[in-house]
């Protein structure tokens, strides 16, 4: 899923301080699962904003809505009937949802309420970590199912570097060395010899380097 964190309240207040009526929109997908932008977080942010305005002697009207998804025009369309009644929108979706919102409601100011962190999962309750950078050419088959692009601080395809110490990364003692994990798993799979296969220079054109990406599937187009 896409993992996100809420922006500091002061930054959000800065976006909307000159408005009187705002629409606060949550998203029922990833950001609900990671407790950043679901219905509950929408309610908490609405209260916090109203209180902050009150402290300044101002009144803020906040309409709370949580959509099934914000990365889908169909669900965003549900706002069509009443969005005009508000001065601005704060979207508690990931960066994708915020942009879809801005595209769909072209004349409406739209602000992000979250910082989108990464694609990852919950290691345990309250702890999320990165697993994928969407490079567009998955190499997990060569690296025992552990991604050095997203999990090695130097994204080394032929690691580990000389800074790997006791299974941890040189940049942070709490961070697992991805190559230690790869080697451990290769061993478990009885494939340690594969370590000596040199992974060739990567074609990064399927990654961000190749420009904004698009997937087109003719078979499912209308």
């Amino acid at each position: 899923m896409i993992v996100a964190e809420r922006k500091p309240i002061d930054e959000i207040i800065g976006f909307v301080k000159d408005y009187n009526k705002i629409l606060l929109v949550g998203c029922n997908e990833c950001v609900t699962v990671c407790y950043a932008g679901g219905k509950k977080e929408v309610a908490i942010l609405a209260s916090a904003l109203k209180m902050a305005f009150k402290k300044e002697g101002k009144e803020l009207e906040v309409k709370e809505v949580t959509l099934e998804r914000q990365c889908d025009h169909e669900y965003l369309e549900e706002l069509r009937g009443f969005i005009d009644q508000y001065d601005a929108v704060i979207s508690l979706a990931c960066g994708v949802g915020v942009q879809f919102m801005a595209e769909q409601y072209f004349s409406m100011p739209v602000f992000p309420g979250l910082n989108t962190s990464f694609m990852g999962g919950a290691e345990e309750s309250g702890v999320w970590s990165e697993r994928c950078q969407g490079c567009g050419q998955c190499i997990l088959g060569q690296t025992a199912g552990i991604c050095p692009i997203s999990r090695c601080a130097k994204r080394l395809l032929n690691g580990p570097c000389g800074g790997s110490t006791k299974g941890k990364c040189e940049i942070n003692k709490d961070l697992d060395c991805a190559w230690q994990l790869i080697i451990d798993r290769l061993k478990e799979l009885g494939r340690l010899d594969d370590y000596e296969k040199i992974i060739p220079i990567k074609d990064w054109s399927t990654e961000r380097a190749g420009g904004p990406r698009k997937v087109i599937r003719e078979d499912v187009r209308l």
Partner: protein
Amino acid sequence: MSTKTPSRLEKILDAGHLAVTSECGPPRGSDLEVITKKADMIKDYVDAINITDNQTSVTRLCSLAACIHLKMMGIESTLQMVTRDRNRIALQSDILGAASFDIHNILCLSGDHQQFGDCPQGQNVFDIDSMQLIQTVKLMRDQGKFLGGDDIDRPPQMFIGAAANPFADPFEIRVPRLAKKIAAGVEFIQTQCIYNLDKFELWMEQARDRGLHEKVYILAGVTPFKSAGMAKYMKNRVPGMDVPDEVVKRMSGVAKEKQPEEGINICVESIQRLKEVEGVRGFHIMAIEWENKVPEIVERSGLYPRPDIG
């Protein structure tokens, strides 16, 4: 092995001499004298001088420019090149730039993470890694090709080096990793600073078991401690460094003013012991901001005078 390049370092190794290399860090400014003074101090005691490439990710005068200055002084240098800061276009371009000045040694590295340096908020590149940089230089040199497949007019002639850290984890892949670098095309290795000689000897033994010592020239890395504080710092703070307790104790056991001398003693003793290790073909003396001690270390270790091979 026979020589593939005009590198003097390669010729010395090929002739069977124990090679001696050292390194200089370029200045944090554009004052040329900082580097030329250091180089002048040690030039008669070493076969080539590595110029570090923004080591520990602290911005400095570039390695290539410093190598060119050394070249103009008639000193052979080894261009250190990290993949952290440049993509494959810039790396190949700098290799050609170095080749145009007939710089004949290169050390292929990934580089420390930028978090350790003066620009922790900067982006890193890592378009390729050190293993792939070795392959790149080899392709450019031996096949006269760019990575893109086009021909190079006057290809680089570089003796290809890389680092090896016998002390990083996991230990079990440290020799396979060396084998991997050899398969990529590396011709000489400069190791991480050796303080744990037992562990180094075990690594060399495993390398010999696979015959790797005959496929690559291994230069053992040594760094003298200036003080007990430095020994403790290296032990506790520098990633991938293995400083045994006995060494720290030995440094701490002498009076503060005697510690530099003790550090040099330890370094010379290490070299003497490492000379006996089969497969060690020379030494890389990294006297960090202490270059003036290199001549003494080389002399006391019986590595002076340097062979006269042009």
